[in-house]
């Protein structure tokens, strides 16, 4: 990569992981170039920037690539530290923020995928798991405005892109997020009042269209 000054984000429109990076950049008011990747035909730039996983998002800052969405968000928070701080300052709170963001990383997308990929008994198992995940996260949120407390923080950024997938999860597995985790549903609405979130998140109906496309592709009825 040439040492071009500036910020570029290699991404895919509906990726919740890419959206984390976009939201963080928006919160910080960082100007950047967005490059949409064709995931069935990955660009030379992507393969060079992320030779290990060959995945988006990749943030390229002054020619240097940063991979893995949560690492990208922490990097953005550390470099553009003058505004909209996302990580708490105390070590224990930082550990907690990293723990729950990591939990979301380990659980949500994978379980969500099983909701639309599977049927019958297996789908029911995935549904129960998703409800458990949502309720565990709800317990973490409690009565706070955001996971970060009064201010929109790291865990909020980590989780909020998945809220536009709620409609798909609900439709495929026949349940209601509001029904099983009302505080999470309210939190999702609050987040949408933030410009960074509203401008970044995909329309839930478009996400559902994408899920249906994936279902066809994987031969799921």
């Amino acid at each position: 990569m040439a040492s071009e000054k500036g910020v570029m984000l290699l991404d895919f429109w509906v990726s919740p992981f890419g959206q984390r990076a976009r939201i963080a950049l928006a919160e910080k008011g960082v100007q950047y170039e967005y490059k949409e990747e064709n995931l069935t035909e990955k660009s030379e730039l992507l393969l060079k920037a992320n030779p290990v996983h060959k995945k988006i998002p990749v943030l390229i800052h002054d020619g240097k690539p940063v991979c893995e969405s949560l690492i990208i968000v922490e990097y953005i928070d550390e470099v553009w530290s003058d505004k909209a701080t996302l990580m708490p300052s105390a070590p224990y709170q930082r550990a907690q923020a990293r723990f729950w963001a990591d939990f979301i990383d380990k659980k949500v997308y994978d379980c969500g995928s099983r909701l639309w990929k599977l049927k019958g008994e297996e789908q029911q198992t995935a549904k129960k798991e998703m409800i458990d995940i949502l309720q565990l996260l709800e317990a973490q949120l409690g009565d706070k405005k955001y996971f970060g407390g009064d201010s929109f923080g790291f865990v909020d950024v980590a989780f909020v892109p998945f809220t536009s997938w709620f409609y798909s999860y609900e439709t495929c597995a026949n349940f209601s997020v509001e029904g099983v985790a009302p505080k999470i549903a309210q939190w999702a609405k609050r987040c949408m009042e933030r410009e960074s979130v509203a401008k970044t998140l995909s329309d839930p109906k478009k996400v559902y269209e994408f899920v249906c496309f994936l279902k066809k592709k994987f031969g799921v009825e």
Partner: protein
Amino acid sequence: MEEAKGEEVTLFGFWSSPFVHRVIWALNIKKIKYKYVEEDLSNKSALLLEHNPVYKKVPVLVYNGIAIAESLIILEFIEETWKENSIMPQDPYEKAVARFWATAAGDGLWQFFITEGKEREEALTSVINNFELLEKELIGKNFFGGDRIGYFDISVGWISYGVPIFEEITEFKIITEQKFPLLHAWMEAFSNSELVRDTLPLREKLSERYRKVWEATMQKKN
């Protein structure tokens, strides 16, 4: 040994866990005095389950009554709580690179160890690609952290004993001095360092444990 007034540090671990080793190394670099509790993973203690209800795993660090789980998160907590003998780089980009390799370095190694045929070939390709990149990270440095062992080294440190053990059991050499001179040198320097030498369980004991796992896995397949 650093022990401020009223500071109580306990580490719940298991002797062979590479995740636990990371935390032990970090605590030792920082010269933090701590109590170690060996868990029986087939019969986890009530305390462990109370401190890590989400995953119920080791390592868990308990500091003045509060619990932190997940080895890499514990490492960053240790760095931020005890300021002396820093293990993280200062530069945000270097931090991002270290954090990336902390999880990616081991990719494919376990699959290489416990699979056969085409699956193993694929895993090996991935492992070799990663090691080639890691080799580049060592250019001009003694350790991934620079002059001293740091977060990057201790996060990927299990490779220094894991790979030789896997190589021995599978009878397949991955890291040779010719193919990966810097990585090979790093493995020697890291394993022989005062920090690691005195804290690692006996190589034979570790090797025996991995061999048992390998045999059990191979048996299940055949």
